[in-house]
């Protein structure tokens, strides 16, 4: 297998969904069955992605493949020399695994949607949008270039807009779509400025050549501060797209879209793009930048987890848990646990997609009922969904033998090791606390939905297990949530092939003095540059030491969370309502999502609208008023001069006219109408002229 072939394969994978989109959107109206084409395209790209993954991991496991072409050539630019902007693909292990994940989840969502969306008036368009999304997401994954990433970044935003607002007849849906796009844009502006900084520093957008120049010591404005700032600005994009605090508000609203879409975009893939972006630029982030990123991650892990505790909408709970889990990943990246962050990204993608599709299955069969307090007892009616949901919940809670346990434990160990090396003990604290909360709210969800007595008998009676097309994806995804796909040893992820061979911590390119202490190369190891281990041995040691304490602690907190959930809701030993009344302010804070929407509405949105209203008024009244005023003054003046003209000047003219009329009356007599008389007069005139001009 040749590397050029792999790249070509990647190109095909990238563009197949676009073809699917174009065909489906144009023939969506005329050809009823065109959605089949889109599904076939997705199957094809999934197969190709599998081949790609196999080829990459088997033959090129340690080489990154590149391919690029010139997109824009600005020629010989004065002062800067030749500038051209290139686009292209990069295929490393991370990208290969990610593209496979994206394609797999996209495929199962497609298949799930065939039944779920049946009967919708824009059925074909729905699949077209899914194709567009898959295309843009693949672009983000495969790019080697930050401008191209931004391009696909925005395209993903577009497809997300289209899909969230798919049922745009509902005002809440179109509101949510608008909100998602605009909130994402806020983050994107930061990212865009970061890109601008990178470009004016390095005159290129490609990751590799930026890294090479960075390793040579070229910094933005020659200052480490600006390198940190650039990293953080790029991270702004991730804040927006991965719905991190404080821009997380769009994601719960985005649940207005069809549930499979939530599974694909707002749980598994698109929101992961932010994490993926940080993964990509990890090599240029300084210690300070990483620390701030970790803080944002920790906050995003904590706040939505507390909100998820009290939500009653099944999809909202899952949405907040998504934000929380993404916060985990970001935090993990911030503390340097790169491999575990990416690992969690993959495992999370599977089990969260499974959870969402499971909730979709429930919602579908409960006739679009989303309130978990109105469900209950569905375990008997929908055993398969229940099983899948349970496995995924165990995974997200971090129970052993699941994939989630492996990755989450790694992240917690990473924070633990980080704390032991640097003394920031708040990170592991938050990590473990959130792990408990996660276990609690996930099992609250399961118990309220599947256990206990049905709330609405009639709906309960009509509920039934989903058909094959909807059940199959759940099975596939839940099987992928079990440990043995990733490692033979269910308690130590480090022994698995994913972490030992496939994903490695990348080289760090930032100047040594700006890194975390543990990321500085050891003096004795510095000789061996080719080694993939870029952290100092102290980190390896700390990580090793952290492994078992972290694992036990996480087991304990997960168990505690599950136990609490059972106590509250299954066995009803503690009345949640009483507790809620007791801690009314806290409950309200959580129930109302910490009032983020209200605060933003009252400040930024209202402020902008008021400013715009004011400026609209200002423009109409003041600026245009000045224009009209000057026109009025001119007009007044012209009126005056008009009067002057009428009375004085025109009076004079009229007087002359009257005078000449009078004279004319006299001379009228001379107008005989006979030519000859006129000639006589001419002659007299000539004589007079001759007399006047006589020169003698």
């Amino acid at each position: 297998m040749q590397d050029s072939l792999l790249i070509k394969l990647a190109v095909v994978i990238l563009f197949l969904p676009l073809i699917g989109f174009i065909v489906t959107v144009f023939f969506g109206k005329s050809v009823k069955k065109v959605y089949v084409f889109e599904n076939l395209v997705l199957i094809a790209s999934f197969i190709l992605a599998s081949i790609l993954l196999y080829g990459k991991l088997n033959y090129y496991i340690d080489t990154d493949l590149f391919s690029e072409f010139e997109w824009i050539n600005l020629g010989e630019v004065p002062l800067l020399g030749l500038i051209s902007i290139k686009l292209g693909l990069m295929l490393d292990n991370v990208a290969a695994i990610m593209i496979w994940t994206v394609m797999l989840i996209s495929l199962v969502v497609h298949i799930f949607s065939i039944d779920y969306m049946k009967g919708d008036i824009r059925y074909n368009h729905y699949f077209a949008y899914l194709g567009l999304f898959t295309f843009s997401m693949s672009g983000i994954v495969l790019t080697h270039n930050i401008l191209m990433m931004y391009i696909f970044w925005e395209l993903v935003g577009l497809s997300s807009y289209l899909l969230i607002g798919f049922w745009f007849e509902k005002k809440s849906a179109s509101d949510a779509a608008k909100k998602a796009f605009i909130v994402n844009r806020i983050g994107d502006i930061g990212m865009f400025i970061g890109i601008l900084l990178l470009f004016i520093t390095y005159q290129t957008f490609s990751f590799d050549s930026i890294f090479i120049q960075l390793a040579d010591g070229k910094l933005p404005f020659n200052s480490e501060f600006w390198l940190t700032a650039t990293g953080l600005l790029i991270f702004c994009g991730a804040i927006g797209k991965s719905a991190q605090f404080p821009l997380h508000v769009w994601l719960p609203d985005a649940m207005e879209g069809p549930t499979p879409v939530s599974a694909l975009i707002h749980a598994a893939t698109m929101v992961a793009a932010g994490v993926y972006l940080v993964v990509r630029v990890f090599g240029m982030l300084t210690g300070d930048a990483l620390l701030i990123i970790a803080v944002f991650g920790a906050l995003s892990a904590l706040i939505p987890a507390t909100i998820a505790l009290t939500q009653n909408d099944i999809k909202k709970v899952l949405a907040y848990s998504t934000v929380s889990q993404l916060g985990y990943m970001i935090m993990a990246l911030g503390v340097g646990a790169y491999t575990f962050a990416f690992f969690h990204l993959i495992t999370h993608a599977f089990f969260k997609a499974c959870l969402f599709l499971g909730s979709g299955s429930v919602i579908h069969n409960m006739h679009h009922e989303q309130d978990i307090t109105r469900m209950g007892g569905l375990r008997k009616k929908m055993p398969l969904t229940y099983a899948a949901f349970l496995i995924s919940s165990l995974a997200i809670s971090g129970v052993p033998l699941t994939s989630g346990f492996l990755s989450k434990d790694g992240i917690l160990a990473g924070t633990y090791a980080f704390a032991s090396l640097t003394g920031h003990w708040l990170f592991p604290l938050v990590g473990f606390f959130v792990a408990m909360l996660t276990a609690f709210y996930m099992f609250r969800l399961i118990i309220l939905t599947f256990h206990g007595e049905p709330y609405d008998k009639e709906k309960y009676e009509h509920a039934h297990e989903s058909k094959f097309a909807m059940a199959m994806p759940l099975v596939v995804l839940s099987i992928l949530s079990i440990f043995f796909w990733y490692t033979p040893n269910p308690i130590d992820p480090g022994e698995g092939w994913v972490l030992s061979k496939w994903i490695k911590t990348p080289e760090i390119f930032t100047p040594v003095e700006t890194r975390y202490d543990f990321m500085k190369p050891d003096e004795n190891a510095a000789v061996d540059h080719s080694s993939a281990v870029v952290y100092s041995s102290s980190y390896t040691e700390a990580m090793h030491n952290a492994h078992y304490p972290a694992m036990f602690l996480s087991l304990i907190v997960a168990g505690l969370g599950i136990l609490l959930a059972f106590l509250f809701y299954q066995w009803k030993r503690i009345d949640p309502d009483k507790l809620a009344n007791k801690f009314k302010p806290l409950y309200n804070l959580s129930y109302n999502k910490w009032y983020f929407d209200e605060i933003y509405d009252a400040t930024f949105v209202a402020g902008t609208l008021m400013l715009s209203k004011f400026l609209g008024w200002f423009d109409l009244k003041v600026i245009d008023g000045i224009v009209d005023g000057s026109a009025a003054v001119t007009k007044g003046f012209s009126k005056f001069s008009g009067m002057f003209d009428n009375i004085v000047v025109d009076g004079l003219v009229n007087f002359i006219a009257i005078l000449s009329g009078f004279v004319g009356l006299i001379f009228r007599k001379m107008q005989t109408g006979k030519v000859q008389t006129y000639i006589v007069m001419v002659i007299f005139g000539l004589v007079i002229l001759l007399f006047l001009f006589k020169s003698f």
Partner: protein
Amino acid sequence: MNIYDAIFYLFAVVTGLSAFFVVTTRNIVYAAFFLLFTFFGVAGIYVLLGADFIAIVQLIIYVGGILILLLFGVMLTNKITSVQIKTGTLQIVPAAVGVGLFAGFLIAVLTYTEWKTVDTALPLTTTEFLGVMLLQEYLVVFELLGILLLIALIGAASIARR
């Protein structure tokens, strides 16, 4: 006073007098005949000025053409048999005064002006030179005149027929 001068005065008197009669006589037919003499006189003047060809043309066209035409005009517009061929005059006094003054000034201007004169000795026959000029330098004008005449011919016919 040489013979040249004498001939000049002769022709000048003939021209002037007959012109005077043209404009003063009441009978149109007489006026036409006096006009004939005027043309003759002018032709003589032309000869004196060395323009023999022009003089002949003057005779042929004016006398042979225009004058006959005018006579026809008289005949056609005055029914000879019934109506007198005499014509009235009008505003003689102001016209006489005006024209007199005008003529005086004109003559004064013409005589008091210092004309830069070069007495060129022209060859006796001018026909050949005129012919060459007409067909070479002034060919376009010549052609245009031809067209003009044609147009005048057609125009006159069409106007008269209307």
